[in-house]
């Protein structure tokens, strides 16, 4: 099932993430797609808030690659922006997604071995402020 949401500010994009968080369970994987500035990190900030983790802890993991936030479940915030697909293979993401946390991965297209039973979130810039967010859970 695919849901489409239009947002007109960064806060609304975060709020969409917060709503999705309500339906997430430990072990769930959220793959995020979208260009620079599309709102991926803002969406993850909403996920964190929805999971009861401090949203102000959320920042871009581009350099750090993996960040952890602690709420009712641990949220692992991953960013593959800097990595080549061959390096992603060696990163140990399989172990992370098989654990008890919830994993949100930015630039997920760089992970060749990404699993199927995931929630996919595609963010697209319409203009300076507006974003089109498509959330699909991989089920018909």
């Amino acid at each position, binding site marked *: 099932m695919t849901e489409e949401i239009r947002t007109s500010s960064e806060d609304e994009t975060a709020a969409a993430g917060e709503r999705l968080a309500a339906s997430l369970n430990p072990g769930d994987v959220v793959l995020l797609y979208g*260009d*620079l*500035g599309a709102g991926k*990190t*803002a969406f993850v900030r909403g996920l964190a808030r929805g999971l009861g983790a401090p949203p*102000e802890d*959320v*920042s*871009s993991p*581009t*350099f*750090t*690659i*993996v*960040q*952890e*936030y602690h709420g009712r479940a641990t949220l692992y915030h991953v960013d593959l*922006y*800097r*990595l*080549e697909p061959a*390096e992603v293979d*060696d*990163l*140990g993401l399989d172990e992370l997604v098989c654990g008890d946390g919830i994993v949100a991965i930015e630039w997920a297209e760089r992970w060749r071995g990404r699993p199927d039973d995931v929630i996919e979130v595609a963010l697209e810039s319409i203009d*300076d402020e507006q974003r089109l967010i498509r959330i699909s859970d991989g089920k018909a």
Partner: protein
Amino acid sequence: MNLLAIETSCDETAAAVIAETGDSARPWALRSNIVASQVAIHREWGGVVPELASRQHVRDICGVVEAALSAADMTLDDAGALAVTQGPGLVGSLLVGVAFAKALAWSRGLPVVPVHHLAGHIESLTLAHGELPLPAAVLVVSGGHTSLYLVPAPGEYRLIGRTRDDAAGEAYDKVAKLLGLGYPGGPAIDRMAREGNDRAVDFPVARLTHADRNRPRATADGLLPPDVARRLDFSFSGLKTAVLRLVRERTGGVAAGKAAASDASGVTLPPGDVADICASFQRVVVDALLDRTFEAAGWLGARSIGIAGGVSANSRLRAEADARGRRHLIPVFVPPLALSTDNAAMIGAAGLRRLRSRGPGPLDFNAEAGLTL
């Protein structure tokens, strides 16, 4: 006493030896500072590759430690303690240093001190310049971090502001990639910016709240009230997106998107335009960093300002910080280049500080990717 320090939190395998001087104004002396720089490896990939980095740490750590001891003209027998970066960072990379330091400490019967990476950056200032006049407002600004600390007393670090999205150094790297300038982005943009007009493009300045003309009162413990603390946060994502939008407009659409989504930097803007964009971008970043830092210093009655981390090497940031410091009659301290990028000497300084104030910790500490200070 000599302390051997090890740092492997991200892409640099580093070891250093720091000695105590007995002089309380300038407590530590640098005896050696070795970094097995991996920039040559990373440039090929346009960034830090973590698995490559952790393998490289394993390969390099023995040689780097031996080089640090030999550059200090000593052997392990002359080391009285060890310090190692515990976090934050990539757990695979951190583990190499932590496991190495613990094993060495155990086998030699030496104390080992776990150190927070950002405490290291803050103490790089004291290592280079002696004890700062306190309280000090210290900005740590690098590829992975943009955090503002108040240092009210030696060894006390209070977080008073941080980035809500991208770190300043990350914004530099992403913008450099958009403009086809390569990695690392900071020096490349800094160089181009010298040829450009810093008012050519009116990039947005992240204003997180309205300007408040009233000087807020510092709370009794020296921390800012929560509403003010939010105002001291940084945001660089909007600026990055504005550069992306501009590059798209000027290249007719797709080029910048492709450059952002892959390692192929296919943007062709006239060099004059690139220089103007770099200069304008750099002006906005530097103003944002220094506005918050000097505001905090004023509000909290800081007697000095420190700027540490890799971005502190930026020429405009240094020049503007000096000029503002002279105007506000507050001394500004910046570490030399070798102590600004990731290094083990700063970890040694923070380790000695902690060893003398809190003693060595137990050996059962672990690498912590999300360690807070």
